[in-house]
């Protein structure tokens, strides 16, 4: 088996593929301390031909398992392309970062944009806003469809944006309308990153936890005037990409 481990800021994703490149094992575990120990336990007694790690904690896994590492960008490009090889652009919205990746026809990544360290336009921002409203992420993503007023949030900084949310609450704006505003701000950020590339493909793949948010998906496709396709197993895309990389390298050497 070929394994991919993606240690993200919020979750650690593990997946395994077999000789036929079929996904046969996958798991999403919250990222806490000593993540390598947890991964070790998970992989104990499993057949490992190749292990490749990616994500924020990739170097920790590298040290423990002395395995190969690849960047998240490469991992996401690979994983997304695997399920849909028509797309030449991938948008990834994770807990602490957002990226837009441009692929060539054969799925190799050509270029990318990624947010700076600030949390605006990332999954964290959705989480902060949802918390403020006393909702979980799933609930928060649904109520946006009921918005009847196009409110907007002007601040680019997650901390200031949170206080804008607070003042919208104080103004008795409805939860749906506030939800709209928060999503709008993230979607515009992602769209402007994506628009910096003149992307020819009609379909854009959406990966990472953000792709689970159906309202965000619909806003984004409206803004970009393209079909936004949440990738299969959005959160696992990076781990799948890492496993695929391991598979390829194993065949090469």
């Amino acid at each position, binding site marked *: 088996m070929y394994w991919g481990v993606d240690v993200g800021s919020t979750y650690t994703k593990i997946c395994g593929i077999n000789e036929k490149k079929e996904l046969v094992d996958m798991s999403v575990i919250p990222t806490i301390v000593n993540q390598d120990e947890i991964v070790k336990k998970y992989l104990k007694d499993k057949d490992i031909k190749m292990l490749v790690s990616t994500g924020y904690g990739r170097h920790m896994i590298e040290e423990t398992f002395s395995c190969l590492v690849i*960047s998240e*960008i490469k991992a996401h490009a690979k994983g997304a392309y695997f399920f849909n090889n028509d797309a030449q652009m991938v948008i990834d919205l994770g807990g602490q970062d957002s990226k837009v990746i441009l692929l060539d026809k054969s799925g190799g990544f050509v270029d990318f944009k*990624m947010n700076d360290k600030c949390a605006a336009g990332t999954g964290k921002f959705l989480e902060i806003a949802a918390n403020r409203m006393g909702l979980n992420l799933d609930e928060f993503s649904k109520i946006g469809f009921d918005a009847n007023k196009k409110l907007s949030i002007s601040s680019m900084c997650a901390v200031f944006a949170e206080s804008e949310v607070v003042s919208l609450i104080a103004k008795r704006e409805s939860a749906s309308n506030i939800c709209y505003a928060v999503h709008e701000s993230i979607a515009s950020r992602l769209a402007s990153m994506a628009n910096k590339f003149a992307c020819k493909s009609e379909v854009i793949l959406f990966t990472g936890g953000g792709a689970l948010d159906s309202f965000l998906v619909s806003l984004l496709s409206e803004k970009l005037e393209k079909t936004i396709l949440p990738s299969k197993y959005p959160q696992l895309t990076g781990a799948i990409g890492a496993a695929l990389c391991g598979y390829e390298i194993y065949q090469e050497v």
Partner: protein
Amino acid sequence: MSVEEHRKLLSEINVDVDRHAKMMNMGLESYKAQFMSQKNRPEAMKYFDWFMSEIQGQRIAEINELRKQKKPSVGAFCIFVPEEIIVGAGGACFGLCGGSPATIADAETELPRNICPLIKSAHGFKLQRTCAYTQSSDFIYGETTCEAKKKTWEILNKHHPVHVMNIPHMKRDKDLKMWKEEIIEFKEHIEEVTGKKLSLEEMLEGTRIINEKRKALLRLDSLRGLNPEVMPITGKDALFVTQMGFLDDPKRYTQKVNELCDELEKRVEDKISVFEKDTPRLMILGTPIAPPNWKLHTAVESSGGAIINEESCIGHRYYKDNVDIDNIKNEDDLMSELMKRYSEVDCACFTPNTPRIDKILKMYKDRQADGVIYYTLSFCHTYNIESFLVTEALEAAGIPCLVIESDYSPEDAGQIKTRVEAFLESISFKKKANKLKSKS
């Protein structure tokens, strides 16, 4: 260590010695971890390792020795400081600390949060009294290159004398005329400090010394970056050597850099490279990289890339031009030549600033680089905004480019590394694709 040996002197110049010692130890530790651990370093780096260990000791003693003889001692944050004049007067001109996050909280008691970390860090060093260079300076040289600096001088001046030189933001004849007057005024200010007239011959001698220093740095620049087959020194070491050029005695420094270059020349002959073959070669463009800000170089060179040049003020922008002194007959000629040389500096504070773009494109070609990283400090509006025009030109020329905006805090080191790794991967991918293309 050295701080203890120099405790007496440091307290005499009103350094907060205990706090200073703590910071120095942190700095030294991180230097050891990031620099001394590199493999196959040139022998001649030993001098610079020593200098680092004595950075706030021996050198401070030397500077204060000069001050006892009433020689001027000037600290600066910008390469527009006419150091030729200071050195001509027998004094010392040095760059002040401004690359550490450890002083920023103190600075924010007086300065706004959202200005660039360089200014905040520097201001914090003064408030904390933890930079022995700041404490040793007769005055701090300030300029009007950006709003953050310009306004900070007014506040800094409450704690330490500041001499502000008005640097124009355009290079029309009337601006250049004013610039020359500013240099003359600067010279007069130096005379006030020393209480003595400066002769033409003294200033020429200062100019010669600094010309030699810039020549040595240019030599280092070509040795590290012009030959893709052999890279005899890491970008990190070369950056550090350049950074020390803003602190060390210029004559001794020039000699040491030339010794290093001799060794590098030999290494090139013997084909001793510190990077593997086909390591992607990157240039760094943008804002100055004040020590101990080694974040970007560490990220790149620990991810399988090599930095071959900095188009920065601590870098190529500093040493690319020299003062032409061949036909100087009087002081006025010298002032004109100084002004000419300084007006070649393509700092982003100028508008328009197209020579910078032309220079970058040419540099990229000459050095057969594989990509560039445009690095800017957060809230450095000049370089940040200019990045649009620069990257537009780079894209048009088909040059891979990554823009990174960051400050001195360590939190985003991991994220920067991810982006750098991905960038390096994409460069290698493109290289491979190009090879395949040229085969078919």
